[in-house]
């Protein structure tokens, strides 16, 4: 069953059609790649799926229900979490607080319990902290939990962003160029990590990535975007041999 189904999404900025007739279907548990040249509309597609932009036309169904008109926080609460191409951490806060914040909408204690520090407050705060630290351990960041997020090296900031997205306990995770700025070794580790968390957390993952080789290696299916439209989709093997893709995106690289 499809967990996410987008049908004929379009987004127009002024005169520019950033995304047009974008249709995509993600099955539960899939790891799918979204590739395309610079400015193809990949990030815009993410912004449509997460409610940052409202589509000019088209339909989005998540878990069988339309998400059109919902605000980003409502879509996240339904189970879609994401990372950003240009990292958006809570940069002045500690690594631990970054992750803790993402538990927010699962927390049950109210304002009064917070202010009086009674009821579920202590118990839940303890749980949040423990779970956040566990997540940081998975991403090898637990010994940096008290550091200010902006002081982390680039690769670690990217990992922290994924850890934070997971704290929201999503069903679908959207990763916008998670390996950008990482060295080849870090990238390799990250991809193993992504495969692993998909299994461990029972996720569906949609991944934007520039590095073709990398996408081919980890993704089960791939969509190719050019000038806002999907020009091809299929298994890595099919994409590799699709003449339209070779022409539009790969150029001579594949030869």
């Amino acid at each position, binding site marked *: 069953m499809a967990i996410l189904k987008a049908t004929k999404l379009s987004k127009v900025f002024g005169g520019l059609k950033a995304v047009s007739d974008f249709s995509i279907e993600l099955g539960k548990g899939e790891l799918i790649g979204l590739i395309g040249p610079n400015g193809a509309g990949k990030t815009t597609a993410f912004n449509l799926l*997460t409610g*940052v932009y409202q589509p000019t036309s088209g339909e989005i169904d998540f878990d069988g229900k339309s998400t059109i008109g919902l*605000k*980003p*926080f409502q879509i*996240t*609460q339904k189970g879609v*979490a*994401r990372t*950003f191409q240009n990292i*958006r*951490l*809570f*940069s*002045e*806060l500690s690594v631990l*607080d970054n992750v*803790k*914040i*993402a*538990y*927010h*909408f699962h*927390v049950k*204690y109210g*304002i009064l319990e*917070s*202010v*009086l*520090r009674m009821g579920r*407050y*202590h118990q*839940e*705060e303890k749980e*949040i902290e423990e779970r956040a630290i566990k997540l940081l351990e998975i991403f090898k960041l637990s010994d940096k939990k008290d550091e200010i997020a902006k002081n982390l090296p680039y690769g670690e900031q990217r990992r922290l962003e994924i850890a*934070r*997205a997971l*704290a*929201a306990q999503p069903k679908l995770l959207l990763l916008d160029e998670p390996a950008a700025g990482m060295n080849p070794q870090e990238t390799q580790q990250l991809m193993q990590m992504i495969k692993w968390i998909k299994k461990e957390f029972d996720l569906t993952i949609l991944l934007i990535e520039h590095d073709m080789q990398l996408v081919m290696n980890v993704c089960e299916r791939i969509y190719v975007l050019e000038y806002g439209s999907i020009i091809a989709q299929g298994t890595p093997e099919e994409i590799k041999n699709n003449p339209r893709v070779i022409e539009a995106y790969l150029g001579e690289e594949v030869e």
Partner: protein
Amino acid sequence: MGNNKKELLAFVACIAFYAVVQGLLMLDVIGPFWELNLILICINVILAVSLNLINGFTGQFSIGHAGFMAVGAYLGAVLTVKLQLPFIVAILGGAAAAGFLGFIIGLPTLRLDGDYLAIATLGLGEIIRITILNIPYVGGASGFMGIPRYSNFTWVFIATVFTVFFIRNFINSTHGRACISIRENQIAAEAMGIDTTKYKVMAFTIGAAFAGIAGTLFSHYFYIAHPASFTFMKSFDILTIVVLGGLGSISGSITAAILLTFVSAALASYPEWRMIIYSLMLIVLMLYRPQGLFGNKEISLKIFGRLMGGNKRGNTQGN
């Protein structure tokens, strides 16, 4: 466990401080001049800490705090003078009215960003003041006179401690973290499932309610509520305290409130100098320490431990 102990310690320290000051007041060791300043410090702490919740922690730039203070000052006076209700009802009523107004005003204005929000809150503060100015029932331009002096050190101190504990505990909860995440990155906050509009309005409402409490305490100390007490200059005073102490630091706001109340008292006979000195102070601050005296740090036992040579360092890691 360690946390509860610290809470208790802080509470005992407050009571001890209160007992000593109250004792000195009763023995007349602290005369009327210092008593006045003590009360003003407390009221300024309430105003600054509550504005810090909006400006410092949630990152919304409001400069109309005096307007909410005016609502508390006047409504409280109506409740005690016209309706003969007890002081506690006036305080709660002042808080509720200011908070309600904050809520109503916050809903539309908090959609605005940065400079626009600042201008809108500045305008709204003035609108509140001018509206009051034109209501004869509360004295119009000559002010609401004949308010009984119900405020004393006890009331004001309790209200201050309550404010500080309330806002500190709020900040150290998932709700406070939601507010802080808006300051840090609103888009990321939304992406983490935080209803940013709700939390902005909540911070604004809570901040306004506490400004209302400060207003009620204020008018019931000075026998009068006068529109001239709640102009933009008052909002600017409060903002100066918050910025000086550090946006996002409660201890900073408290320290700066004490400091600036004294500066203001020392310059009482030269009012024209006060604004110049405030402005110079802000300029120097922006040049040398733009994050304010405390940045977004709090004074904690940890820091004291470090200053004392750090032999207790291991004990404070719990938080």
